[in-house]
């Protein structure tokens, strides 16, 4: 037995309440204030998982975000979250968790066979073995992924709410330890708007496991009173359980707040989000993110029971856990001694403090010796021995005077916990993410922040200041400076007094020498999560790798959920040594967001589901369409009625009915979604001349004209009808989907190329509700509805517009037709759109008026050969390809004109728009079908073009299609073949693209 237990008193846990939870199927208990790790450690659980590659048993190493081993799958079903660190999971009643590695069971792990064959699994093993032949990788991958473990994403929809919050502040403080608290306090007292975020459930950082006194009170009391003052300040936002995960350009930072995790699944108010992603724009940033203790690298340093000194102190002081009966310390600096003091304070036997420095002196050493703990200067641990429960012995050896070799073997010491400290690595992640470059400080043996490139400053141990008094002072100064830099200089703050600590120097040690005397030959682990060893990095160098970024990818050093928080610096130092470089020359890998993993829920926020992922635009008549049971189609962001099924009609029947009714009686279409742009100014006609391929300067007031807009490449970009309202004043319509792009295009030309043109544009798309009344009875219908102007063909010819009153509503009525029928487009102020629609429907009752949707609209226009930009064109089609030479002016310039003369645009075998009639009139070609001249089994078959639109025409009682065919205009009557994916071959004859009424007699219908 390891002898782990709970101290009878102390710690920040609530002993008055017990919590039961399950880990790997077994029930345990803990207290509020525990983490999953502390509660399990208190009950003697040491085995938390198995490593990624060799499946070695692993225990808890750390007490926070740095933890590489104790990864669990938390919760069940839809609430389940993979790969959470047990060291950061707050315990709640009913918690369930299981280890993510260790299939089929933690105790007997099938993958640990890898451990025996470790010599066959060197660095780059996967690259060398499974990548060749390439096709085999997909086969191996399934098994490797399974054996490699790591958690499982839930398959059920996430039942929780996630949201986002955007916020600006004067000073953002990342980290609520001593430096961060004082920085926030100083900035808040100065009057600044402050956000203080800390990843833990409570503020205090290292003070949560400290026995220090601040201003005469306990560290914890000082934390509480400081937090109380901050909370009372309305300019301060306190964010506990919130990790500053990303630092981006222009002082934009992202904070991941875990709001209800600690309550457990289904326990939180459903109105409160589970996580919130704060998106903060900060004037100034103070990084008080602390430091992470570094492991020492020696043989067998990965067995359960080897933990960081700071973690041992945290479990003892904060969680009142006595982690074992007997412990020992292995350190290269003074801070490790505190773990020995804490272990003794908790009643543990401390076998030794093993210090690899030859002559450690000072306060720390004296305090340990005063407790009767033996100190072994100039010694190291060269091996560990373990049983099924983890560590039980360490093997001591003496170093040579220069520290480079083992001098003598000093025997075994009993201990179940070995606290190790290889020094501290300032948490420079956010500083580095901001674009700055950390530099290596030889005195501290760690990377410290370099020159800032954004408005940020580091304070406290994240800047390499490791003593409490120094951290408090640095925090206060950083807070004052940040507030002043953001324009706030009021307030006053005394730096609290605390006992100054003298600290001896650190002796950098990146790898403990191997012993020739011992029997071990065990691995020295750099990265516990990825099982990267010293030998792996050295092998990579022997194989020619030089860049730290390449070595990382070859050895997996620093990958995984912990991103190398523990192992990276040691690994870089080992690499530097192998390359004969300094650490500054080798450098670090790139620190990227996020600092710790962020859930997809938090990233998605509320922008999920049909309702909120993409906006839904509705016309003024939308409620009517819904009441009629219309089926909707998404067009751009609009919901447009697709068809209106009657009494269980299927789509085909409904569309046939709608088409027939419109050709024979009268149909109505909600055309409100078309883009509309008001164009006004003395140069408006000239502007249109430059935009469109045809001429606009002769268009009379009250007349309409159809136009094509080309890109600079001569390809069709948009089309629509533009009406001259009065001289110098036009109303342009665009396609539904192209409206915003066309508006931007026009403004761009006006503002950047032609500022001398006096033209103003205003988007009026939403102001007008437009209904298209189409069919031979449309004129009769409108006359019955009451119009105060003459609807007759002589007074109101095709392609003209009249303003007046329709059914008592002010309206613009245009004789425009996209169906090829006699048609009137009636536009009214959208507030009256529904009233007009209902009035038309009522008046149309006696004509059996039929609302039709976009599908019938498509069929009707295809019967007439009218193209839809974006369907029959695809950005590679000119007006000439559509056979519409008549719309391209020879006598003026326009955007895209020069491109029409390019050899490729002018050649005669370009794809050209044609009609297609299948030999089998009932067969409707699939849109997108490829066309060939002769079907063939051999590949490739020369492609002659493709079908762009295809429908069954109820009016023609057969299928029709539009297609783009190479040289199609000169191939009328030829047969081409659609060779379909399923092998079907469909012969079709090339015809004119106009299938109905080529003389346009129907839409003109000048007589009533």
């Amino acid at each position, binding site marked *: 037995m390891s002898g782990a237990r709970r101290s009878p008193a102390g710690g920040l846990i609530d002993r008055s309440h017990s919590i039961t939870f399950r880990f790997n199927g077994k029930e345990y208990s803990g207290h509020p204030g525990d983490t999953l790790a502390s509660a399990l450690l208190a009950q003697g659980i040491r085995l938390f998982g198995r490593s990624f590659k060799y499946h070695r048993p692993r225990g808890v190493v750390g007490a926070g975000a740095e933890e590489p081993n104790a990864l669990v799958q938390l919760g069940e079903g839809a609430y389940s979250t993979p790969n959470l660190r047990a060291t950061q999971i707050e315990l709640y009643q009913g918690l369930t968790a299981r280890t993510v590695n260790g299939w089929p069971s933690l105790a007997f792990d099938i993958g640990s066979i890898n451990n025996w064959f470790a010599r066959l699994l060197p660095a780059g093993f996967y690259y060398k073995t499974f990548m060749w032949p390439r096709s085999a990788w997909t086969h191996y991958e399934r098994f490797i992924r399974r054996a490699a473990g790591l958690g499982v994403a839930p398959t059920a929809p996430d039942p929780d709410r996630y949201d986002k919050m955007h916020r600006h502040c004067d000073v953002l403080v990342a980290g609520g330890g001593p430096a961060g608290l004082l920085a926030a306090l100083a900035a808040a007292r100065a009057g600044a708007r402050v956000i203080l975020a800390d990843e833990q459930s409570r503020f205090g950082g290292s003070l949560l496991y400290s026995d220090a006194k601040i201003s005469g009170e306990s560290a914890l009391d000082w934390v509480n009173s400081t937090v109380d003052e901050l909370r009372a300040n309305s300019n301060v936002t306190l964010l506990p359980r919130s990790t500053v995960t990303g630092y981006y350009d222009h002082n934009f930072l992202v904070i991941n707040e875990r709001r209800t995790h600690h309550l457990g699944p289904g326990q939180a108010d459903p109105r409160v989000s589970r996580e919130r992603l704060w998106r903060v724009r900060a004037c100034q940033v103070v990084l008080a993110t602390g430091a992470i203790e570094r492991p020492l690298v020696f043989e067998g340093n990965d067995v359960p029971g080897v933990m960081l000194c700071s973690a041992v102190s945290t479990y003892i002081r904060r969680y009142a856990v006595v982690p074992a009966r007997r412990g020992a310390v292995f350190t290269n600096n003074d801070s490790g001694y505190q773990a020995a003091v804490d272990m003794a304070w908790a009643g543990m036997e401390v076998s030794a403090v093993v210090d690899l420095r030859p002559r450690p002196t000072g306060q720390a050493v004296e305090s340990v010796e005063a407790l009767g703990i033996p100190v072994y200067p100039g010694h190291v641990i060269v091996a560990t021995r373990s049983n099924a429960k983890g560590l039980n012995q360490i093997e001591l050896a003496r170093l040579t005077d220069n520290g480079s070799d083992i001098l003598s073997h000093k025997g075994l010491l009993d201990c179940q916990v070995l606290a190790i400290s290889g020094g501290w690595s300032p948490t420079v992640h956010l500083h580095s993410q901001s674009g700055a470059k950390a530099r290596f400080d030889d005195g501290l043996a760690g990377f410290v922040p370099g020159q800032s490139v954004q408005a940020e400053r580091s304070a406290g141990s994240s800047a390499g200041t490791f003593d409490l008094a120094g951290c408090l002072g640095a925090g206060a100064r950083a807070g004052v400076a940040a507030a002043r830099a953001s324009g706030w200089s009021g307030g006053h703050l005394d730096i609290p007094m605390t006992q100054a600590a003298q600290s001896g120097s650190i002796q950098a040690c990146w790898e403990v020498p191997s012993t020739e005397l011992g029997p071990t030959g065990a691995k020295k682990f750099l990265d516990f999560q990825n099982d990267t060893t010293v030998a792996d990095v050295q092998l990579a160098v022997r194989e020619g790798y030089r860049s730290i970024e390449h070595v990382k990818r070859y050895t997996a050093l620093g990958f995984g959920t912990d991103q190398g928080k523990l192992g990276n610096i040691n690994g870089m130092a080992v690499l530097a040594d192998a390359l004969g470089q300094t650490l500054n020359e080798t450098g670090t890998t790139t620190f990227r967001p996020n600092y710790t993993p962020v859930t997809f829920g938090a990233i998605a926020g509320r922008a999920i589901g049909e309702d909120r992922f993409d906006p839904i635009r509705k016309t*003024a008549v939308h409620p009517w369409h819904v009441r009629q049971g219309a089926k909707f189609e998404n067009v751009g962001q609009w919901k447009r009625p697709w068809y209106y099924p009657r009494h269980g009609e299927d789509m085909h029947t409904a569309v046939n009915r709608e088409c027939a009714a419109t050709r024979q009686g009268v149909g109505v279409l909600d055309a409100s979604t078309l883009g509309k742009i008001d164009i006004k100014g003395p140069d408006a006609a000239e502007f249109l001349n430059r935009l469109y391929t045809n001429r606009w300067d002769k268009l009379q007031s009250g007349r309409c004209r159809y136009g094509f807009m080309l890109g600079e490449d001569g390809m069709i970009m948009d089309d629509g009808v533009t009406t001259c309202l009065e001289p110098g004043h036009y109303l342009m319509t665009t396609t539904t989907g192209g409206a915003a792009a066309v508006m931007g295009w026009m403004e761009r030309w006006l503002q950047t190329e032609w500022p001398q043109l006096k033209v103003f544009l*205003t988007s009026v798309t939403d102001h007008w509700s437009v209904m298209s009344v189409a069919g031979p009875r449309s004129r009769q219908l409108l006359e019955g509805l009451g119009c105060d102007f003459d609807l007759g063909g002589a007074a109101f010819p095709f392609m003209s517009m009249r303003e007046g009153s329709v059914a008592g509503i002010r309206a613009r009525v245009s004789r425009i037709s996209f169906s090829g029928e006699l048609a009137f487009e009636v536009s009214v102020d*959208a507030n009256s*759109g529904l*009233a007009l629609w209902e009035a038309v429907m009522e008046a149309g009752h006696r004509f059996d008026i039929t609302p039709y949707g976009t599908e019938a609209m498509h069929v009707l226009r295809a019967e007439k050969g009218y193209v839809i930009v974006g369907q029959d064109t695809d950005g590679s089609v000119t007006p000439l390809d559509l056979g519409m030479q008549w719309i391209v002016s020879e006598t003026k310039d326009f955007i895209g004109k020069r491109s029409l003369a390019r050899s490729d645009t002018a050649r005669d075998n370009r794809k050209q728009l044609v009609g297609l009639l299948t030999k089998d009139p009932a067969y409707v070609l699939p849109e997108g079908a490829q066309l060939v001249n002769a079907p063939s089994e051999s590949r490739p078959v020369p492609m002659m073009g493709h079908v762009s639109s295809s429908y069954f025409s109820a009016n023609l009682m057969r299928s029709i299609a539009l297609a783009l065919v190479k040289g199609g205009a000169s191939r009328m009557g030829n047969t081409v073949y659609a060779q379909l994916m399923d092998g079907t071959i469909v012969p079709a004859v090339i015809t004119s693209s106009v299938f109905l009424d080529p003389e346009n007699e129907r839409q003109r219908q000048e007589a009533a």
Partner: protein
Amino acid sequence: MTSRFSPLSEIKTPQRQLGASDRLDCWFQEQAFRAHFNLRGDPQNSDFLQAVKEQLGFDLPLVPNTVSVAGRWRGCWLAPDEWLLLGPGRSEPFETLVGDLSAMHHSLVDLSGGQTVIRIGGPAWRDVLGSACTLDLHPRVFEAGHCAQTVLTHSNVLMIHAHDDARGEALDIVVRRSFADDLLRWLIDAATEVGFELHRPRT
């Protein structure tokens, strides 16, 4: 007079829902059927500025993101040569303005059917907006006389600091008709935690 329907008159949402603290800390109300006119003209042309001032009573704001108010008309800066005139409706001074401007290069376009105003207020309105709005709405930065254009969730909007006669400080969100339903449902969902009331449109 035929019936008119404002963009949010048929919105399908709960009218009232308590927040997690059993409070209603946010309210919404459509300010329906306001007159919205988009005005474009040359800010260097003193005749243009004078014509507006004479008929509507305020100097067109030339400072970006500011608002001028006179009586029930507001003029909001949209761009160096573009403003939104928000008011009660066409009236005699407005018709006079139309005539006065006719001699100079300008554009005055009626958008009254194409836009509406969502007014949001209550103690938590800034937090509700904060879930969607990337701009700084803190009272130190965004106060009476200010307006700003941005994208809220998916919708282009103009936000105007406002004072509601009945309910105090508020924000007017001018949004296109077709997006109004989407935006208001989004904001109401954002107010789930603080609780909300949706008042009947004010006409």
